[in-house]
């Protein structure tokens, strides 16, 4: 019998084999909770949610008497109405907070691990690069969902509680899928771009600055395309070069909102897909390079 079979201290307890990525995610969340800035973002998100809840409650109270003066006033003002536009605008604003959070949590996700030699230690353990890649992504996706979907569901619950009718329930259900899709449209590209920047650059600040620069560049592209489209409307497809415009455009379509730009659906989808795939490939390629010295 080989000596190494006679292990010097047997391990009798259970060993986790599945969902190993979730440990990476859990550790990242534990680390994030140590930063005040993270709490600040959460407080801002909670404040926004609180204001929206007040809006839903006011609207619901006003609508309890649809022919009343208050209901008429709310209908006239429009801005207080709880409908597709309400959720679309809520998610757009929430998108800014999600961007901040993902930037904060994601820009150091890989480079800090590399700088602190944690990558070396992790890959010397029975943890695969797939677990690591998925775990890091799920941290950002989880944060995104915390900021997008949890408040949306909460708003729907408040709405349903205030107006407990079948019609309210039906409306709420019809908003869930667009909300989820619009959330994913924000979360996936931003997370992957941030992780790719973090994997490519040596420091958290560089990675954060790089993502901000890309967002600014996106707005510049949008401005340039606007000038082109102003002179030639046939060039409106070029708006797809601005990913943020594409995301917004898809959001407008999902929530049946008036379209701000004459951008084709396929153009917008391809724009978001290309950015996500390129960022994802860079992210995975860099992690694999960190995992094993060639």
């Amino acid at each position, binding site marked *: 019998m080989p000596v*190494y079979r006679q292990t010097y201290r047997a*391990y009798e307890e259970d060993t986790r*084999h599945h969902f190993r990525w979730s440990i990476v995610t859990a550790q990242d969340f534990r680390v994030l909770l140590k930063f005040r800035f993270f709490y600040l973002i959460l407080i801002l998100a909670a404040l926004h949610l609180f204001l929206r809840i007040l809006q839903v409650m006011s609207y619901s109270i006003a609508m309890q008497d649809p022919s009343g003066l208050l209901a008429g006033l709310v209908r006239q003002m429009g801005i207080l109405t709880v409908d597709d536009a309400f959720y679309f605008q809520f998610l757009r604003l929430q998108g800014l907070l999600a961007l901040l959070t993902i930037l904060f949590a994601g820009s150091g996700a890989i480079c800090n691990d590399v700088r*602190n030699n944690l990558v*070396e230690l992790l890959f010397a353990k029975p943890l695969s690069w797939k677990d690591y890649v998925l775990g890091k992504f799920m941290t950002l996706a989880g944060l995104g969902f915390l900021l997008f979907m949890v408040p949306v569901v909460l708003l729907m619950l408040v709405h349903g509680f205030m107006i407990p009718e079948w019609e309210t329930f039906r409306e709420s259900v019809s908003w869930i899928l667009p909300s989820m899709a619009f959330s994913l449209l924000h979360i996936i590209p931003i997370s992957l771009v941030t992780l790719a920047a973090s994997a490519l650059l040596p420091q958290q600040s560089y990675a954060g600055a790089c993502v901000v620069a890309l967002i600014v560049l996106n707005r510049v592209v949008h401005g340039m395309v606007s000038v082109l489209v102003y002179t030639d409307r046939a060039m409106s497809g070029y708006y797809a070069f601005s990913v943020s415009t594409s995301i917004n455009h898809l959001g407008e379509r999902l929530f049946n909102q008036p379209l701000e730009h004459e951008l084709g659906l396929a153009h917008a989808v391809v724009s978001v897909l290309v950015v996500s795939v390129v960022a994802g490939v860079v992210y995975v390629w860099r992690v694999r390079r960190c995992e094993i010295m060639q």
Partner: protein
Amino acid sequence: MSAIVTTKNLSKWFGEVIAVNNMSVEIHPGVTGLLGPNGSGKSTFLKMLLGLCVPSRGEVTIFDQMPRNNREVLRRVGYCPETEDMFDALTGFEFIYWLNRQWGMERSVAKKRAFDACERVGMTERMHDRITHYSKGMRQRIKIGQALALPTDLLILDEPMSGLDPNGREEIFALLQSLGAEGLTVIVSSHILYEVERVTDEILMMHQGSLLAHGHVREIRALIDEHPHTIIIECANPRKWIARLTAVPGLIGLELTTTGLTVRTKDPDQCYQQLNDGIIEDGADITAFHCADDNLQAVFDYLVKR
């Protein structure tokens, strides 16, 4: 006895720089010291053992399997890297706890083992402080602790003594010796010969990426037969011993010292025999004699000069 680690013609080069050159070794249970000056390729060699570095040529097997991305193998290997930077945002205890979790332990087991590991490396009092507040020695202890927390059969420690105070070194020396005695396979790298000498006689010597020697210090010394052995004799009357030892075959030189005599010989067995005979016949005015060449530094110097 089965070898735990086997490498065959293992080589690694980075462009034109050869980091590891044609290393073929077998490492058995017990403590093995990996010795070599800075830049000799020790860390690259260890990373290749763990599958963290792709060999340019050759192969590695641990427990008869390839280590690269092999969960079965990596579950049984503990690794303490050389680098000083660590994850500052966590406490020492959390650091070990999360690495235990990444290994696959359940929450309660990971906590218990993290606590035990902190205790084993003498960090119980400070384990809940953030790593950023630790001294270099404390970081080193935590790094060793995370490797010890795992139920491994093979421990790979890259320069574990660096940054430790004398007391810490003594504790780690004792710990490594006890782990070796328990049957664990431990590979300890160092560029300081004294450190390795304190924990083991079994050494692998590397120089400029190549394996210079492998085996027991004395076996290695015996290989260098063209080089004289030095025997230090502590005695009250050295002149009496000079007369006796000049007749020994293979004698190269004798030197009087303040405490006795230093003998340089190519045939140490004859010299020891003469000393033993002398003690029996003339009484024991010799208080001690030992071979200076058992010291690793001497062996290393000889081999590098070759």
